[in-house]
Each structure stands twice: as structure tokens, then as C-alpha cells.
């Protein structure tokens, strides 16, 4: 519609658009649907003939004289800065607001460290960074369009924020209004880009000069990777990218990462005393471990005290094969414990209280009234709007410090306080804990047999067959397990820190595929077999992620957990219908994805991914799995669609 409310004449609109295009040199590259096919086949006829000066410049050594040709764009220096801070990959969905930087990365930077990875949606760009950082231990950069790109990226930024994972967001923007070229530049420009995501980023800046860019980029990396880690945003002005750099390039500050904060020595001593003197101590871990050393230290602490461990599985913390891993007995252990140490818990209140989805029910304390609770963690990213800081929890001793970093001094403090009596008390627990651990593993195997031949395929059967095939490889699970009833943890031998990376953090759908591909990218450098159990509903938020895996040859085994539904929501609606005593046979409305059923194997194949399925007979899964693993080991992604039970 025109401003006066009348219908804008289409021909006039197109001709004005062509005028804009011609003046910027875009017209020849943009299909014009007002032209016939024959005319479209000759797009170059509308290009102006090159001037003699242009021809000379193309073929000779003449310098650019009038700003049409630029030798030394500022975005080249930006690439130098990105290289200096060690960014290996930049995920992107192309956008004009960062065309200068884009060109510098691929030409000036040679598209190596950083290498551009093409994504089909900004949510994928950031989701890949989320998964990558949890495996690589450092961020990649996600380069997105200002305004529209940031809005597309928002959900995945929130997930990374909640999961305390560093992602370096770069957003193009045209701040100078007088330099914007037409309506789309105005629509895509923003006065304060950081405001779009400020509630879920740790820091942002919009540098006004190249030296400012250099400093802020280095600062951004430092801020993002200092615990508590989180995404940061750097707004990169479009004009600045494209301007020539005159004079010498500004210096690039050295990235000096600080040591991680360690808990206060007096508080550590106090915690050690409580733990050593406890009758029934308990260790609960959330995001406690990020390295092999961290896992080793956690095992050492647990063995020193012979303390049972409940792994809340926000990361790979404690081996499932270790007898002190008593996660399956979590509820009774919480009730019995007299001293509990929680390390990097995501939700302290929710760990020690139980919620009930019953009308009028309140949270109930899940631990003894007498239990002393110690928490160790660095989290302090409290902002007002998003409520991911969780319900306030009163604890007896709160140690502010990075969990993994504080393990060593805590071990030494415990060791120094372990009397002979305390050692004997700890030792006396071993036999029973070993027995209970073995019993839990046996019970899991027994339970896995239930519905073994069922169609749709049971989740334990899926996980058991998967384990049978991957166990001989150096494998890593790159998806969460909560929608699979944590069956992988009950059936597989997790004993390395990189074999699991937790979940989305924010429980925002569309996490799994991008994060799995990002994680697989990081695992590729180590030759590991990355495995993802992918929910069907989750994949359909960002199916284009599969194309990126195929395009960049990222080896990832995806096994669809295809229950053809948003299954959790079926259960929610059923709960409502039962309470209201009406229509309990209609919970499928609005919750199932079955008519028509989605063919995930065909979807994957359409994007160049080897695939099989749908597999409905459980006996067909293993052979398909073997074929898929062979493909992944050859360096390509593969997907098997398997029709499964809901949970």
C-alpha cells in the first residue's frame, strides 16, 4: 500500500526498484520478474559498459582514484583481529550489512582460521557455536545480519546464555543514517543492536573506530570465556568494514585470559571439615567438569571421601562406570544425606526441592531438614528480565568460585582433615556402594528388555543397539538424553569428559541439530564418532542444519527419535483433560506430527545426507546402523529415521 492508502502500482514499484538496483550495480545480478524469460537470459545487456579507467584498473596497475576500488579495506584488519584471538570458524548466513567483512574473510584471510561455515538460518549459526564451544573449549564466531539476523538468532542465544556457553556474535549494522542505501538498509539498521539481546548476553559493544574494534573484540573474547561464560555481541559497522584503512593498522591487543576464580580458602576449609565429619555425605554435580583433568579431580575427591555422586548431567561429570556414580538412587540419597556438596548446579532450589504438578501443591523439601548444604560455583549472571536465575535457595555455605578450578584445593583440604576414623568411615561405605551400583546397572538391563521387540521401537532398544555398535569407536554423544529417559546413561559406559555435553540450557526447541553439528565439527579434529539422538519435533525447527553438515562434510551420526509428536505436550494436554474430566481421547490435537508423517530420511537425502528409514522393525535397526557408521567414519554425516515409542 502507498502512504495515502492506495494500492502501489506494481509496475511503478518495480521500475523504481530497478532504478535503485542499477545505481548500486545490483540490478544485473537480481532476477527481474517483470521481464520475460528471453530478456532475463541476457542480464548483462543492462550493465553499463566499463569505462576505460575501469578496464585499465582491471588489467593494469593503475590505482583506484575515485573510491570505486579499494585496496585496503578496514575489514581486512578485522580479520587480522579474529585470527589473533584464535577464532577457527565463523558460522554465517550471508547479509549485506557485513558484506565487507565476509569478503575479507574469504579473500584476504584465505577462508582459513577463520573459515566461513554456511548456515541456512541464524539460529543454526549460534546453535552450532553452542555445541562447538562445549567440545572445543573455546568459542567460534557467528556472523549475522543486524536486526533481522539477530532476531533470528535470539532463541539460540538464549539457550547458550542459560547453558553458560561462550559464543562470539558479530552483527553487521549501518549506524550512519545518511549512508543507508534505501528502505531495506533502514529496515535492517538499528540504533542499539545490543539492546535486542542484552538480557541474554554478557556484554556487547558497537565500536566506532578500528582501534576501538580491535580492543573490543579482544575484550569480547575475554569476557565470553571467563566464568561464568556466556555469549557476547560485537556490532560491526558496515561503513567501517568497507572504508579503506589509511596509514598503519592499529595495534591488536594481546588476548590474555585470566585465571579462573578459585573459592576462598577459609570457605574451602569449612566445606572440607563438614564433608570429612559427615556420616552420609553426598556430592551433586551439574556443570562441574569441562576437561579430562576436571573429571580426574572429581573422581579423586569422591574416592577420597567415598562419597556417592548424583550427576545432574548438565555436562559429562562423572563416569557411569564408577561405583560412586549413584545417580539412579538420587531421591533416596538426597533424603539420607547429612552434608551435601553441590558443584555448579544449574538450579540449586530445584535440586533440593521437589515440585509436583498437582493443583495446589507446593514445592517440597527433598532433603533432610538437618542436612547441611554447601554450594560451589561461579554463577552470578543475574539479570532482571529473564528468570533463568531460578528460585532463591538458602544454603549453609556458599563458595563462590569456579567448580573445576576449586576442586584441587578442596581435595587437599579434605586430605589434610581425613583422620583415621574418617577414613575408616569412608572405607566402610565402599562395599555397599559397589553393590548398589552394580544392582542399578543390572536393573537397567532388565528394564531395557521390556518391550524389546515392540513396534514402534522402544527407546531402550534403540539405545542398546546404538551402544552395541558405537562402543568399539572413540565416540561422543552430542545430544541431550532427557527426552530418552536418560537411557544412554543407564546402558552406556560414559568414562571420558567429552562423551557428553549436556542439553540446551534454555529448553528452547531447535537446539539439538545445530549444537550436535557444531559439536561434531569440534570432534572431527580428534577423529571421534559423534552421535546424536535427534527428536523429530526439535529437528523441524531447523531442518536446514542438515545441509550445513553435508556441505561442510561434518561427520555426525544422527538417529531420529521419531515419535511423530511433541510427545511431552501430549502428556501435558492429557493431564489437563483428565483433571477436567472431558475429552481424554483428544490430546493428539495440536500435539502430533503424523498426518502426513514426515519422511526424515528423504528430508536428509534431499540435502545430500546419506540416510535410511523409516525403520519400524527393531531388527532392521542394527544393520542400518552399521551402514550409517561406515558412512560417518568415511567423513560424512548420516541419518537413520527410526519410528519410536513416545518415551
Amino acid at each position, binding site marked *: 500500500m502507498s502512504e495515502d492508502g492506495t494500492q502501489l502500482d506494481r509496475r511503478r514499484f518495480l521500475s523504481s526498484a530497478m532504478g535503485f538496483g542499477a545505481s548500486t550495480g545490483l540490478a544485473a545480478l537480481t532476477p527481474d520478474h517483470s521481464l520475460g524469460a528471453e530478456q532475463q537470459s541476457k542480464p548483462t545487456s543492462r550493465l553499463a559498459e566499463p569505462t576505460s579507467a575501469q578496464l585499465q584498473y582491471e588489467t593494469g596497475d593503475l590505482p583506484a582514484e575515485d573510491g570505486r576500488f579499494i585496496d585496503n579495506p578496514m575489514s581486512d584488519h578485522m580479520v587480522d583481529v579474529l585470527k589473533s584471538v584464535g577464532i577457527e570458524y565463523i558460522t554465517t548466513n550471508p547479509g549485506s550489512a557485513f558484506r565487507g567483512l565476509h569478503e575479507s574473510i574469504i579473500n584476504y584471510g584465505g577462508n582459513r582460521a577463520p573459515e566461513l561455515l554456511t548456515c541456512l538460518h541464524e539460529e543454526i549459526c549460534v546453535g552450532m557455536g553452542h555445541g562447538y564451544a562445549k567440545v572445543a573449549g573455546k568459542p567460534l564466531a557467528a556472523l549475522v545480519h543486524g536486526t533481522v539476523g539477530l532476531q533470528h538468532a535470539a532463541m539460540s542465544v538464549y539457550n547458550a546464555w542459560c547453558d553458560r556457553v561462550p559464543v562470539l556474535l558479530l552483527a553487521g549494522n549501518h549506524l550512519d543514517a545518511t549512508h543507508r542505501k534505501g528502505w531495506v538498509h533502514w529496515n535492517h539498521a538499528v540504533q542499539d543492536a545490543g539492546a535486542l539481546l542484552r538480557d541474554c548476553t554478557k556484554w556487547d559493544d558497537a565500536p566506532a573506530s578500528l582501534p576501538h574494534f580491535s580492543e573490543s573484540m579482544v575484550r569480547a573474547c575475554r569476557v565470553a570465556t571467563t566464568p561464568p561464560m556466556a555469549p557476547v555481541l560485537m556490532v560491526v559497522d558496515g561503513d567501517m568494514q568497507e572504508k579503506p584503512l589509511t596509514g598503519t593498522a592499529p595495534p591488536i591487543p594481546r588476548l590474555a585470559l585470566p585465571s579462573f576464580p578459585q573459592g576462598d580458602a577459609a570457605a574451602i576449609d569449612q566445606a572440607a571439615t563438614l564433608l570429612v565429619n559427615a556420616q552420609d555425605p553426598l556430592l551433586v554435580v551439574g556443570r562441574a567438569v569441562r576437561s579430562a583433568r576436571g573429571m580426574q579431580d572429581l573422581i579423586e575427591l569422591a574416592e577420597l571421601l567415598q562419597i556417592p555422586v548424583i550427576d545432574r548431567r548438565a555436562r559429562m561429570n562423572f563416569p557411569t562406570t564408577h561405583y560412586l556414580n549413584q545417580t539412579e538412587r538420587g531421591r533416596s540419597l538426597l533424603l539420607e544425606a547429612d552434608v551435601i556438596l553441590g558443584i555448579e548446579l544449574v538450579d540449586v532450589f530445584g535440586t533440593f526441592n521437589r515440585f*509436583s*504438578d*498437582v493443583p495446589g501443591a507446593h514445592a517440597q523439601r527433598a532433603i533432610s531438614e538437618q542436612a547441611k548444604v554447601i554450594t560451589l560455583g561461579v554463577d552470578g549472571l543475574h539479570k532482571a528480565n529473564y528468570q533463568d536465575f531460578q528460585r532463591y535457595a538458602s544454603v549453609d555455605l556458599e563458595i563462590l568460585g569456579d567448580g573445576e578450578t576449586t576442586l584441587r584445593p578442596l581435595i587437599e583440604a579434605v586430605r589434610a582433615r581425613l583422620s583415621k576414623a574418617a577414613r575408616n568411615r569412608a572405607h566402610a561405605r565402599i562395599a555397599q556402594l559397589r553393590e548398589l551400583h552394580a544392582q542399578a546397572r543390572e536393573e537397567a538391563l532388565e*528394564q531395557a528388555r*521390556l*518391550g*524389546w*521387540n*515392540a*513396534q*514402534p521401537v*522402544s*527407546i*531402550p532398544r534403540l539405545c542398546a543397539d546404538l551402544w552395541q555398535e558405537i562402543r568399539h569407536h572413540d565416540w561422543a554423544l552430542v545430544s541431550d538424553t532427557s527426552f530418552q*529417559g*536418560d*537411557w544412554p546413561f*543407564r546402558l552406556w559406559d560414559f568414562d571420558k569428559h567429552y562423551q557428553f555435553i549436556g542439553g540446551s540450557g534454555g529448553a528452547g526447541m531447535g537446539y539439538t541439530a545445530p549444537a550436535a553439528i557444531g559439536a561434531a565439527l569440534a570432534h572431527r579434529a580428534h577423529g571421534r564418532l559423534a552421535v546424536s539422538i535427534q527428536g523429530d519435533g526439535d529437528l523441524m525447527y531447523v531442518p536446514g542444519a542438515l545441509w550445513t553438515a553435508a556441505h561442510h562434510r561434518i561427520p555426525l551420526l544422527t538417529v531420529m527419535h521419531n515419535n*511423530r*509428536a511433541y*510427545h511431552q505436550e*501430549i*502428556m501435558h494436554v*492429557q*493431564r489437563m*483433560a*483428565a*483433571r477436567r*474430566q*472431558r*475429552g*481424554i*481421547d*483428544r*490430546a*493428539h*490435537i495440536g500435539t*502430533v506430527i*503424523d*498426518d*502426513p*508423517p514426515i519422511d526424515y530420511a528423504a528430508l536428509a537425502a534431499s540435502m545430500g545426507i546419506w540416510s535410511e528409514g523409516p525403520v*519400524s522393525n527393531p531388527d532392521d535397526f542394527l544393520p542400518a546402523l552399521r551402514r550409517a557408521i561406515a558412512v560417518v567414519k568415511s567423513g560424512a554425516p548420516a541419518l537413520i529415521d527410526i519410528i519410536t*515409542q*513416545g*518415551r
Partner: protein
Amino acid sequence: MHITLLRVWMLAAVMLTTAQSGLAHEEAPSSSSPEATAIARGRELYMALGCYACHGTVGQGAAGTAPKLAPGTLPVQALIALVRNPPSQMPPYSPKVLSDAGLRDIHTFLSSMKD
């Protein structure tokens, strides 16, 4: 009653599974016997009313979500009592939405599941 493709397919799947893992090892009731009729009705109700959603299509349960119902199904009166007044977070299913007779049929269906 609207039954989607998924539900039709799941019903067929349950029938197949039952044949494979359960009744195949026993002397199956003839298709016209009262027991066979009750099993069929129970199976249909189990799927249509969404019991399968939490407890699995063959009553195997789901870790962290819902306990198994088969094999080793509770006595029918215990099952009815549990459904009316569940101790867990399962919502109560009143006679208004699920009759005792229907629950007995579901019980018969679940009891037909064998190891």
C-alpha cells in the same frame, strides 16, 4: 472418535507386537472368545485414551516418566484404585472419562502381555 494415522498405525503395531512377544507363546484365545474380545477392546481403549503415551504401547513404561504396567500387571482392583487415586503425578482418571468396565478391559489387555 477421530483416530489419526499415527494411532491407527500404533494399534496395528501393538497387535503385531502382541503376536510376536506375548500371546504367540501362549495358547491364544480364539478371536471370538470373550477374553479375546475384552483384549481387543482394552487395547483400543489403551491407545485411544492415551495410556500408551506415558506407559508405552505394550505397557513397558518409560524411565523417568511412568512405571511399567506389563508384564506383571497389578490385580484389576488395584489397577482401578490406582487410576482413580494415583499416588504420583499421574492425574486421576474419573469414571466420567474412563469407566470401571473400560479399565477391566484395559487390564485384560495388559495381562495378555507376557515376557
